[in-house]
């Protein structure tokens, strides 16, 4: 299996703060990895660098073999992102939002089919002609993720996709993420331990901009002697 993402000593510094401090990670194609950490751990900054939204201060990052700084045009064609805030055009309908995003990536003749597929995949049929601003938080988040995958990216970045959703909406979204996982590599950031536990093939624990630990859940449990991701996370954070 080839690598989807490889970073080497990746650093992002702002004026007086180092948000990401020399992380080196490898993500295999087809995997769903979770970046886990408290607020300010550097998860979103890492995603921003990997999606060409922010330039690394030092170090390198390659996405499907392309350098995120030197080959950002290529990288942008291969990745999709759903940001923490639902990034939708509020006055456009569900269908129009999807058509617009599809038109940025796909040839004209494939847009209609891709839109219908996305609407069906996320159960958006009854809302297709409803303006985005009239959707509930959960449906808006689904639309936001549908917009991220409609360009058929090879890698999908989900930045806290279930933040602020009720438990039912969150579980429903998990089912959809499980389905997407069959078709692309996914990098997910989350605060919710049970989310990472349920969805991730591999977990990276970030603390203060560094990777404090990584591995599968069972590997992390074996290393820390704890059971369950929450206990594992606390143990790692205390020891770090």
């Amino acid at each position: 299996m080839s690598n989807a993402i490889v970073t080497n000593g990746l650093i992002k510094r702002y004026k007086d703060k180092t948000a990401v401090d020399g992380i080196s990670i490898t993500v295999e194609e087809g995997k769903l990895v979770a970046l886990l950490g408290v607020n300010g751990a550097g998860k979103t900054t890492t995603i921003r660098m990997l999606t060409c939204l922010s330039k690394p201060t030092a170090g390198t990052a390659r996405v499907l073999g392309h350098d995120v700084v030197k080959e950002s045009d290529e990288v942008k064609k291969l990745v999709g992102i759903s940001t923490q805030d639902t990034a939708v055009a509020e006055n456009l309908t569900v269908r129009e939002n999807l058509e617009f995003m599809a038109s940025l990536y796909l040839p004209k003749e494939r847009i209609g089919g891709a839109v219908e597929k996305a609407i069906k995949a996320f159960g958006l049929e009854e809302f297709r002609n409803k303006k985005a601003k009239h959707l509930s938080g959960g449906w808006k988040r689904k639309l936001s993720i549908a917009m991220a995958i409609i360009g058929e990216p090879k890698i999908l970045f989900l930045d806290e996709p279930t933040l602020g959703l009720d438990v039912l909406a969150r579980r429903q979204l998990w089912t959809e993420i499980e389905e997407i996982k069959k078709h692309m590599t996914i990098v997910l950031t989350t605060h919710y331990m049970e989310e990472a536990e349920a969805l991730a093939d591999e977990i990276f624990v970030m603390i203060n901009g560094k990777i404090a630990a990584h591995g599968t859940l069972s590997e992390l449990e074996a290393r820390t002697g704890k059971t369950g991701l929450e206990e594992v996370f606390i143990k790692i954070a205390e020891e770090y």
Partner: protein
Amino acid sequence: MKNRTLSFAKRNLIEMSRDSLSYIFCVAFPLVMLVIMSIVNASIPKEAGMTLFRIDNLAGGIAIFGQTFVMLFSALNVTKDRSGSFLVRLFASPMKSRNFTGGYFLPLIVVAFVQVIIAFAASFIVSLVTGTELSVLGLLAGAVAVIPSAVMFIAIGMIFGTIFNEKAAPGMCSIIISLGAIVGGIWFDVEGVGGFMEKLSRCLPFLYSTKVARAAIKMDFGFDTFLMPLIVVTGSAVVLTALACFFFGRKMRADLA
């Protein structure tokens, strides 16, 4: 074939067409001013020799006045996108700086053109009511002649929208709206006033915009009355558009740093 500029332009046009403020500021308000000023004109005695609000002069002024509100929408379009996450998503897409600037400009040019057509259609009706001669050909010439001016105002709006935030940009646009109305010769004869006001008016492009519109409507295509003002407005539009593209590109690079 993927045309990202047109896709983004279409999105912006739809967003604007669904915002009731677009209709209030871009269509209703200029029309209300047209009616009010026509009523004012009717109450001015002929002996006063004041022709500024006569429909053949007023129509051109209203066209430029309307464009200042298109500028406001230009600024709002950019600041609204900047204040949310939508632009972040688009920055992560294959869209380039030129796709954004083109996508912001194109729908507003359409809006400005439709706006001037509506204003001139209303002006023609007023001319029939008041018995003032207004040629359809002149109005059509005027609608085309004010396009450079529309581009200039859209560019100013885009510069403000890029530099300032959602709260400050409309305020800056209000200054230009007031300035344009005063020194643009829309509501009073700045050349007649003379002095500093006239000098200031001649240093800014707004008076030339009004002159182009008025001359074209009267089918007066002389060098001093039409061509020279058109050159000034077109030159200003080119410079300001280049600046708008520069500022947006710089902002985009800064956001992605």
